[in-house]
């Protein structure tokens, strides 16, 4: 009896999400799956073509290969840098010092700009051939390339942008650090533990749920990055497809080339890729994520 009461409570708290999921998300999701088996140009009714879109994706789309390559490059570089930056600064800004509130705000401001239209101009101003970044490099005798316009480097300016906007990840780390009970540190200090010992025995283990969260979410979001690539390349993904992130290509296919059926098929391939990576993370999590609620 008690058991069923618990079940009921669980579903009761889940009710808003459950209703929303069924009413708002489920049918569009199923519709997009259906559309992935059709030829759909938005203007006329979709036509069933079976696995045609999927076949084309794997056999006859030279841009898709480029796009997947660029996306993996972006994910593999931006995720670790973003996390490392955010974690480092969160630790630095988590001490009981004056002015930290101000510093936190300063470091967070870039993230406030988000995908604002002004960003595209700002970023070009910084990473242009004669931009401030190359002026800095010239001090140490390096002549920098045109970071945004050179196909060899354009992806790095995109990665740079994503690292620059590390603020939200930092905030989550900060919140996580604050959740660690102070008395643990006090007790450790009494025991004479060093800073490093405190870090490796207290901070790290207790922060693992938040690290896990940030890793998973940053990964999912990085695979789907769209706005950054869109505004930096003026929606083209160029030069020579060097910033053609998967979601950007999907958008171009669906909305510019009016091939929404194909775009839907692409979306489901991406879902499978992301789900595979996320699934792996969840599988490994039991070995390194520590939960205070005692259930791993």
């Amino acid at each position, binding site marked *: 009896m008690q058991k069923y009461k618990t*079940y009921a409570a669980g579903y009761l708290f889940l009710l*808003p999400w459950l209703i929303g999921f069924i009413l708002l998300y489920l049918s569009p999701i199923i519709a997009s799956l259906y559309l992935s088996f059709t030829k759909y140009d938005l203007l006329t009714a979709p036509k069933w073509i079976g696995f045609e879109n999927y076949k084309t994706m794997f056999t006859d789309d030279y841009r898709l290969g480029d796009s997947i390559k660029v996306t993996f490059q972006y994910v593999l570089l931006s995720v670790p840098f973003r996390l490392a930056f955010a974690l480092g600064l969160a630790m630095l800004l988590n001490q009981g010092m004056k002015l930290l509130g101000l510093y936190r705000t300063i470091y967070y401001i870039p993230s406030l700009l988000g995908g604002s239209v002004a960003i595209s101009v700002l*970023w070009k*101003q910084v990473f242009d051939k004669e931009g401030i970044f190359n002026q800095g490099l010239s001090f140490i005798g390096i002549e920098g390339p045109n970071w945004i316009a050179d196909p060899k480097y354009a992806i790095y300016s995109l990665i740079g942008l994503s690292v620059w906007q590390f603020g939200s990840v930092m905030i*989550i780390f900060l919140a996580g650090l604050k959740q660690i009970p102070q008395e643990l540190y006090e007790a450790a200090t009494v025991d004479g533990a060093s800073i490093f010992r405190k870090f490796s025995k207290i901070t790290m283990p207790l922060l693992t*749920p938040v690290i896990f969260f940030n890793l998973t979410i940053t990964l999912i979001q990085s695979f789907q990055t769209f706005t950054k690539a869109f505004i930096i390349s003026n929606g083209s993904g160029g030069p020579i497809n060097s910033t053609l992130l998967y979601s950007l290509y999907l958008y171009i296919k669906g909305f510019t080339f009016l091939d929404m059926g194909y775009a839907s098929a692409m979306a489901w391939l991406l879902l499978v890729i992301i789900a595979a990576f996320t699934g792996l993370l969840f599988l490994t999590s039991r070995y390194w994520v520590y939960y205070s609620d005692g259930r791993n």
Partner: protein
Amino acid sequence: MAINRQFKTALFHVIVLGCGLLMLYPVFWLISSSVKPTTEIFTSKGLWPSSITFEHYSQGWNGLRNIQFGRFFLNSILLCVVAVIGTVLSSSMAAFSFARIDFPLKNLLFALMLGTIMLPGHVTLIPQYIMFHEIGWVDTYLPLMTPKFVGDAFFVFLIVQFIRGIPKELDESAKIDGCGWFTLYFRIIMPLSLPALMTAAIFTFMGTWDDFFGQLIYLSDIKKFTVPLGLRLFLDSSGSSNWGAVFAMSVLSIVPSLVIFFLGQKYFTQGIATTGLKG
């Protein structure tokens, strides 16, 4: 020793502040461009304008026919406030359920929930639009607000992670004291998750503030326009853009989020006193 320590502190401040200011260079450029004369915006290299003008601000604020930019701010704020309330409430409830209560199909439902943020939104947009059109919600705020009340996978997951950092013994002792699930959620777990809730609130505010595509698709009447849509009124990639006004209004558009962040940060940077409760 004391001097050494002072020196270290000073060095810390210099480095942190220095790097911070360097990171803010683009933002300074934005602010400076918003007060530069139009012809100077893209031609002069320096940050410092030759003369300061506020015409872009007045142009941006009053330059549109029949409508003031302030209206877009009010609309955005309304939308964001509703979004924050809805998201925090619904996400925290779902998170509490996932983190603290055992029920059948829990893992499957959690995976499904994460799945909803793995599918690129561009392909569900059209079906969703058609659905909202069928029920007559297009060109109202409802398609933008309603989804916020069902919980957002990102925040549910976030809050779950935080709740799981709260020792389970609390629940047990609360139950012994005769607390029901609701009291446990509302009186114990929620206050202890305040940093996560505040984080969710701030992110929701900013995410909603920034969302261009959704607002573009659903809102048509200019009186309902929000800040991102208002900004695009000055921008025409196929012809000429009024960049001065764009920059000026972009600067203003950061202000609300900045204020909220500055005021809100004490909630997620203050430790939570778990000790008192434990005893």
